[in-house]
């Protein structure tokens, strides 16, 4: 006998009956800087005792549950230099405190960065998208962050500002682990720069979740260019299948130069399954995540390929 395998029941981290989500059950000091400079000064002064409040849809929830108890809360929503969507010629710049709802309403995002548009549209509901910001989604560094895979396939760059000036970090180097990024306690994510892609690029985003409002079990973004049915260039990124959102480099390598057909897509789906390292948690199991990764990568490739030709 090989011994019976019992599936261990998965306990959620928080017992919903034991937390109070009516109030924020501790005191903190609140700041409302008007410029990036002011915000950095506050961050430099208070360091890791301070938390940045952008949309609040994650931060306030975690404060209510006492996962975090910052002594200082710095609201960056009133900093105008952080709220914009701007065409800069080579790239589109989005301010870190720009609301998801504004991004979804932007015609240029919908036309040029379809995968990002689809990702934002897939997130929560209208009220949350009116509050939540793109910078907040990235800085929380959830492995399931929906804006991460599209930004990974478009190879976005992040402008980070600190007391000694600014630095640019490619998004694939930004995430370090669940809830961890390269941001220092005195630094602020200021903007996201997304390079424009050539005309013959198609992109798509697909997410598997229980219901429309839920966080992803798995999400994937794909961007690709093809000529005469041959894949010339392809980027694939997945979320919720590893400690950080990841690029599927080996799958990309496998596909480049290949004909776009059913057989190659099937093979690519197999490669993806070897690249993801999912875990079992309250949202899904490792086995399901692995299996479905292959399926949605294939679907996303098909969708993106159609868009190469139909725009």
């Amino acid at each position: 006998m090989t011994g019976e395998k019992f599936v261990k029941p998965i306990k959620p981290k928080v017992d919903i009956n034991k937390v109070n989500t009516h109030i924020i059950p501790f005191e903190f000091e609140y700041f409302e800087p008007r410029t990036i400079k002011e915000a950095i000064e506050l961050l430099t002064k208070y360091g890791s005792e301070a938390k940045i409040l952008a949309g609040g849809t994650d931060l306030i929830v975690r404060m209510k549950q006492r996962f975090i108890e910052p002594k200082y809360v710095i609201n960056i929503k009133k900093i105008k230099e952080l709220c914009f969507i701007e065409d800069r010629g080579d790239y589109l710049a989005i301010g870190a405190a720009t609301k998801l709802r504004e991004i979804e309403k932007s015609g240029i995002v919908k036309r040029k960065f379809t995968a990002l548009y689809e990702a934002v549209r897939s997130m929560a509901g209208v009220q949350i998208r009116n509050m939540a910001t793109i910078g907040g989604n990235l800085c929380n560094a959830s492995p399931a962050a929906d804006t991460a895979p599209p930004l990974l396939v478009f190879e976005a760059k992040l402008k980070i500002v600190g007391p000694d000036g600014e630095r640019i970090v490619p998004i694939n180097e930004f995430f370090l682990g669940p809830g961890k990024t390269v941001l220092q306690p005195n630094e602020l994510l200021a903007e996201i720069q997304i390079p424009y892609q050539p005309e013959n690029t198609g992109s798509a985003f697909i997410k598997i979740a229980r219901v429309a409002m839920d966080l992803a079990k798995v999400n994937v973004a794909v961007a690709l260019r093809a000529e005469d049915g041959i894949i010339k260039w392809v980027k694939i990124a997945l979320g919720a299948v590893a400690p950080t959102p990841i690029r599927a480099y080996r799958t990309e390598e496998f596909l480049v130069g290949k004909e776009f057909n059913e057989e190659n897509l099937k093979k690519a789906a197999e490669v993806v399954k070897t690249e993801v390292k999912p875990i079992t948690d309250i949202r899904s199991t490792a086995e399901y995540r692995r299996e479905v990764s292959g399926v949605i990568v294939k679907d996303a490739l098909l969708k993106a390929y159609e868009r190469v030709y139909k725009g």
Partner: protein
Amino acid sequence: MGKVIRFKLNGRPVSIYVEDNELLLNVLREKLGVISPKYGCGIGECGACTVLIDGEPVLSCLTLAIEVDGKEVTTAEGLAKDSELDIVQRAFIEEGAIQCGYCIPGFILMAKKLLEDNPDPDEDYIREYIRGNLCRCTGYVNIVRAIKRAAEELKFHVSRVKQTQ
């Protein structure tokens, strides 16, 4: 520390002292007696606490009260003109879209904003738009019907106003 904030609540200026850590929902309900926004889940999943800030629907249970200084807040209480209900409110009553009623203030504000964004919504658009609001009586069919009815009546209303001009 806290401070005195000034904002417009349903068209009327309000000034009130709030603590740094107070939530808008609690200030509205407990300090200002505006009780149409409801506490549902407290974590941003149910939409019962929806209010409009500067015309945009947001969740008041995840908004610090101190942030609304200088803004305009609208709740379901602010929709009726004099003693006449808003078209959206009437449509909800006429379609029987209300069972226990707990979620309805949130739905009504969403419907109001939805019709502003799109005066001619189809069912998919409506369901997509209200997906952030839960109704545990599961009265969605009637709610969707009420929003469609409000859209029809609004169109009729607009065309009548045009005719009389």
